[in-house]
């Protein structure tokens, strides 16, 4: 085993570099922000409003689209159907295209003169420059994360258990809710968290569909473009803090759930 020692050291060194690469800019951001500046920014109405908007729109995007995406993921994991490979590829398109291009595409799709835009207008929904538009943009770029995680989760549930449940008189819907969903829940939860996080941090697609109302990523960019780095840094620090707190709490909840299951 000693022969591996130099290699292990080299790998650890490379790992340290990567870690430093991730941590250093973030740490620099916080070091550049004094506590007074930090709290002043956090209590700035525009900042607080944008953070709140970002949080709830990304959560709505995750919940609304998740309701459709989770059953669809089960289909992808369990059923054979025509063009399944093609459909699986299509699902990942939002990950690989530039997000500004995604924004342009969504804008064309929901603009006032489009069919969707006109239908929305009839029920009083305006997608451009509004929260619903932000939700759609966030969902578009983040939904692959949920679908992929949920599909893998459902695929890892032994099919025999679903068959056994059917054999025991359960309807397919009951099998889904009492067997497939609880057993795939770990992956689904992690997919939901990923989707929410990805939606929350989205800038490119959101800024094109809705410059106003301003989500925090857009606000950070606006402050940077209009006033410079010094104005953008505290907002970024506050937003990153909020994100981190949420993820740590969510991860803790998820881990506790895991332990209960074990």
């Amino acid at each position, binding site marked *: 085993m000693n022969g591996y020692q130099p290699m292990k050291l080299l790998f650890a060194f490379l790992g340290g570099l990567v870690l430093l690469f991730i941590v250093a800019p973030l740490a620099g951001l916080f070091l550049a922000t004094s506590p007074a500046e930090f709290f002043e920014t956090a209590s700035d109405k525009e900042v607080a409003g944008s953070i709140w908007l970002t949080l709830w729109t990304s959560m709505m995007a995750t919940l609304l689209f998740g309701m459709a995406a989770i059953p669809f993921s089960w289909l992808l994991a369990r059923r054979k159907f025509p063009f399944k490979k093609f459909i699986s590829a299509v699902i990942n398109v939002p990950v690989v295209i530039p997000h500004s291009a995604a924004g342009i595409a969504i804008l064309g799709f929901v603009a006032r003169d489009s069919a969707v835009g006109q239908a929305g207008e009839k029920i009083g929904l305006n997608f451009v420059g509004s929260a619903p538009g932000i939700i759609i943009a966030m969902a578009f770029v983040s939904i692959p994360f949920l679908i992929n995680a949920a599909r893998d989760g459902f695929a890892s549930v*032994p099919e*025999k*258990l679903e*068959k*056994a*449940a*059917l*054999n*025991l*008189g*359960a*309807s*397919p819907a*009951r099998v889904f809710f*009492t*067997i497939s969903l*609880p*057993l795939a829940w770990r992956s689904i939860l992690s997919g939901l968290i990923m989707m929410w996080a990805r939606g929350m941090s989205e800038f490119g697609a959101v800024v094109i569909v809705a410059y106003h109302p301003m989500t925090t990523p857009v606000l950070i960019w606006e402050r940077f473009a209009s006033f410079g780095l010094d104005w953008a840094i505290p907002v970024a620090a506050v937003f990153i803090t909020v994100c981190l707190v949420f993820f740590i709490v969510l991860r803790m909840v998820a881990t506790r759930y895991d332990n209960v*299951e074990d």
Partner: protein
Amino acid sequence: MTMLKIKDISVRLGQFELAGVNFEVARGEYFVLLGMSGAGKSVLLQVIGGLIPASGGQIFLDGKDISGEKIQRRRVGIVFQDSALFPHMNVYGNIAYPLKSLKHRAGETDRKVRELAGLTGVDHLLKRAVANLSGGEAQRVALARALALDPSCLLLDEPLSALDVQLRGELRSLLREINRRGQTIVHVTHDYEEAAVLAGRIGVIEGGTVVQEGTTAQVFQHPKSEFVARFVGIRNFFRGMLDKEKGREEGRGKGSLRRFTTGGIGFTLLSDEPPGEGYVVIRAEDVIISNDLASSSAVNNFSGVITGLEPARMGTEVMVDIGISLGVLVSDDSAASLELAGGKNVWVSFKASAIKFIRK
């Protein structure tokens, strides 16, 4: 009265094929489908349960054609080899699952769960997570869960194969008890001993079809095809009574010489099983045939008349009537040098340890 009727069932799954399977199981019967692994036994059970669609044929349950019935309406409970318990529920949750699916009232569900847990001997485990069950306990829970469905027919897919010998014995007794209460059971296995112990009737499945069907004695003593003969491998299969041990004191060494009587003939064998009804198996290759009684360590010596000679896969099988018909496997050279022929008087001998007793 017929409870389950399988008529011309065929299935094609890739390379695998079930072709025209037919058999019937009477109400309250314990039917064992015996076959080698890969013979299609498990597939057949899943077809009956509706988990795999048949490409042709019909399945009748209690007189009703259920071939096109939805899985959840078939009321045939399957117990899988690996129990397939739901890992996110405890034992109680597992047994209650079918009752909740069938929308029983809460009180009724609770009563039934406790009753079945009592029957299967898992009443002390109801709150246990299924991950913490032993193999035997898991199979008992799986049995209780399948019984909670109140199935017209219980389908068992090699339920004992993952268990050790002692647990197997205990679970066999439980299965017999469940059957005694009137439950119709179809049990698939590759283990002829399991079939002999449990079956009321046996169906032998080979190459995707049922090649022979009958009582245990019919199938084992008169195998219809070379496959059946080779697979069950026992021409010498006799039903009878094992006597009490003579002069055996408590705690003495195991395996004393015992007496087994069948058809007026008595064999001496080694066994530590309790006295009672059962089968003995004597492998044809363990029997020695001679023209005169030779002195040897064999305690079972009988004179008889050769009733037939049949070429076997290895050598010749000689049938000798010693009061009952005994098969003896000899090499072709021995058959020639002993001048064995139909009607000739010969002696047959075998050791007490060559006899295997299977308790019914």
